[in-house]
């Protein structure tokens, strides 16, 4: 791999973070999460009806490598709001349960969206629909 390509990936990630008010880097897509932690994070965002962009880190290992270098955060998923890392799955779920996530995202907390079990069930059933655009970093590199 050339360092030029790596720099392009890093720039594309930085640009995506800057362009999207809420952007989730995850394994898989909101429609088909490839990891339970990513699935739970997507479900929390969807339970709040929060629009978000999503990036699948799996197609190219360099996406994850560069993302973690930018964010100083070792794990996936990573949720960025307003250009800043809000957290991974644990922090997002903690903030969801406390109501802080809705506040951070500037959305209203819908009634009945207060149980983790409900969030998990939504993710597993596949009933939840993505509410935001799905961005693929590699599309920006053509």
């Amino acid at each position, binding site marked *: 791999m050339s360092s030029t390509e790596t720099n392009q990936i890093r720039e594309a990630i930085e640009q995506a973070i800057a362009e999207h008010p809420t952007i989730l880097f995850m394994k898989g897509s909101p429609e088909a999460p490839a990891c339970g932690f990513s699935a739970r994070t997507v479900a929390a965002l969807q339970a709040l009806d929060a629009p978000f962009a999503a990036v699948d880190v799996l197609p190219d290992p360099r996406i994850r490598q560069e993302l973690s270098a930018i964010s*100083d955060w*070792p*794990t996936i998923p990573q949720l960025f709001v307003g250009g800043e890392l*809000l*957290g991974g*799955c*644990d*922090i997002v779920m*903690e903030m969801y349960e406390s109501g802080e996530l809705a506040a951070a995202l500037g959305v209203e907390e819908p009634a009945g969206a207060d149980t983790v079990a409900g969030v998990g069930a939504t993710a597993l059933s596949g009933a939840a629909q993505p509410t935001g655009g799905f961005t693929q970093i590699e599309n920006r590199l053509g």
Partner: protein
Amino acid sequence: MPTAEEIKQRIEAAIPGSRAEVDDWTGGGDHFRATVTAAAFAGRNRIEQHRVVYEIFGAEIGGPIHALSLKTQSD
């Protein structure tokens, strides 16, 4: 591959005065869940608190430790 007990000891050794409860989430020896309480977390946001714990394990996170789910709190 580290055990839950080893992870607990490494966290408590690395963060003086901390208490860690660690369990093997799936029983498979690579997905762990830890609750860490430390006075050192006071004044830091959650991101910074989690980074302190992640840094103890470095590249082991995502490697032999596939996942380390964290809950952190100050005393």
